[in-house]
């Protein structure tokens, strides 16, 4: 029986964790299987939860977020017969670990292009969650995409906080959005988990466009969300559950070519995205896959050519 450990923010954050939840539910529906799950309430519980599930014989144990890296490093070796899966971690060294990363910068590049094309003011915003390299990685791809469309575009970027609480702070998301609007932004991209709910809400209230993240968030405010940067966490979880105990270990990075990231189109945002926009973005996607365009990764550079944090 597999187990799934959500990160702080909870499985209904409409974003990262909810994607995992969706993947797991899909697996359960398709196979009729059951799985155990738990939402973290605080940092201190991570290790306990891992051990509890391992003791109870769950396999594989799928965990969400980079916060699990350190606990996994401590726990995995104690349970060599259990396979652990971790999303958003790619740097650990353990034989019974499947590490899944995503090329978020590539997906963010595409939605950055769309933001620039939809913007009338020449200013677009980025609101990150917790200020960590991962989120800068998102922002950096986004800024590059926007600048590719309009080299003069102004990208305003803010982070919500420095701790995991930043994943779940809609009030602050809302205030930051208002601040960015006053600086002229008319499209904002929220890469902030549950905080994004506040960003999208305020953008809709104030009549500007927003861009969701991780899950498809277009439906939250139909006609007000330009698109969502999809990060197929659901696929990663689904596949890990499907493979079961024999899930392959190692490091896996999913980019545009693997359909690990992308942008969301559905009836909710169809009126917002013109055929021209779509054509331009699809072309860029193909160029990236073909290697004609390269998006700089913040991870590899530790700095961003298009955006100052």
């Amino acid at each position, binding site marked *: 029986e597999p187990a799934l450990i959500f990160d702080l923010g909870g499985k209904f954050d409409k974003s990262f964790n909810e994607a995992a939840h969706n993947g797991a539910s899909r697996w359960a529906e398709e196979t009729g299987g059951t799985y155990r799950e738990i939402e973290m309430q605080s940092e201190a519980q991570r290790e306990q939860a891992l051990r509890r599930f391992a003791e109870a014989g769950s396999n594989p144990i799928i965990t969400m977020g980079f916060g699990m890296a350190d606990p996994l490093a401590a726990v995995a070796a104690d349970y060599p017969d259990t396979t652990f899966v971790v999303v958003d971690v790619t740097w650990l060294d353990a034989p019974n670990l499947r590490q899944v990363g995503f090329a978020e910068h590539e997906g963010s590049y595409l939605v950055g292009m769309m933001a620039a094309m939809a913007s009338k003011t020449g200013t677009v915003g980025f609101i990150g969650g917790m200020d960590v390299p991962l989120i800068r990685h998102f922002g950096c791809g986004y800024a590059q995409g926007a600048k590719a469309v309009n080299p003069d575009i102004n990208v305003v970027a*803010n982070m919500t906080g420095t701790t995991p609480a930043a994943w779940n702070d809609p009030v602050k998301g809302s*205030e*930051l959005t208002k601040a960015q609007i006053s600086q002229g932004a008319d499209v904002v991209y929220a890469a902030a988990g549950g905080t994004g709910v506040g960003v999208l809400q305020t953008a809709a209230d104030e009549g500007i466009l927003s861009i969701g993240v991780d899950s498809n968030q277009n439906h939250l405010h139909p006609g007000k969300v330009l698109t969502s940067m999809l990060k197929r966490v659901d696929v990663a979880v689904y596949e890990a559950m499907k493979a079961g105990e024999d899930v392959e270990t190692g490091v896996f990075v999913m980019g545009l070519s693997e359909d690990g990231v992308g942008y969301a189109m559905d009836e909710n945002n169809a009126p917002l995205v013109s055929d021209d926009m779509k054509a331009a973005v699809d072309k860029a996607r193909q160029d990236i896959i073909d290697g004609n365009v390269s998006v700089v990764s913040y991870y590899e550079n530790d700095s961003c050519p298009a955006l100052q944090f």
Partner: protein
Amino acid sequence: MEFFVTLIQVLDSTVRLATPLLLACLAGLYSERAGIFDIGLEGKMLMAAFFSAAIAAVTGSVWLGLLAGIGASLVLSALHGLASITFRGNQLISGVAINFLASGMTVLIAQSWFQQGGRTPSLFGGGRFEPINFPFAEALEGVPFIGPIYSELLSGHSILVYVAFLFVPLTWWILFRTRFGLRLRAVGENPAAVDTAGVSVVGLRFAAVAICGILCGIAGAYLATALQAGFVKEMTAGRGFIALAALIFAKWRPWHAMWACLLFGLLQAIALRFQNIDLGGVVIPVQVMDALPYILTVVILAGFVGKAIPPRAGGEPYVKER
């Protein structure tokens, strides 16, 4: 000019953030003026936030939500009254219990009701308080200075913001110009005097605690249905305690309470809007800004702004027979 725009934005946000503080602070004012200390403001607000959002989500009517929030807060008020007035228990301990009760119950009920990890569904349309735009707000927007002040800062808030600020003069009037106010103040100073004057101490105190509940209810509803669009767990985030500090800062006076809450609102607005603040080379880390309202509270309590003397009978149950 850009500074002016930012200023208006920050002040606008100050008004929004000060509103729940002000409502809670006035709530505490009624209760403490009647001699019942209430550190359960936080819990009452939280409970109200949840029930207002839940009912608004289910019925689609924010007004029903508001009523539900007030009702939920009143239930906790009644509990506090029962413990501290009827059974003459320790008011601080009762407040602590109420805070825990709210913090646990909201998540528990939310989870069993909506299965969304302790939140309510997002509110939209009639489920939320919409901003009220003053007449000519749009037309005046372009006018320098006056325009932004009128149409950004004063206009465009939810009705509860205006209600909260109207409660300031109203509270002053009730307290100092009516019979009820005279008795309320007296019962917080010397309940035996009220009792021997032929007025029910228990009745007055329950009335004060009930008003406190109503105002906390509005504060909670404001958080969940006006400031935000739905309930998330622990969404009051210590506002009840800051309201108490504001109350002490204000020395239990309505107008001063308003200024104190605006000050705390301003601090929160600044902390929300700016990250690390660079003051000519010295960078103030964001954590300092986050902690500033709390630090300021301690400074105020330390009496650096003059000694605050609470209502004399505050915190003590009225005991006739030992």
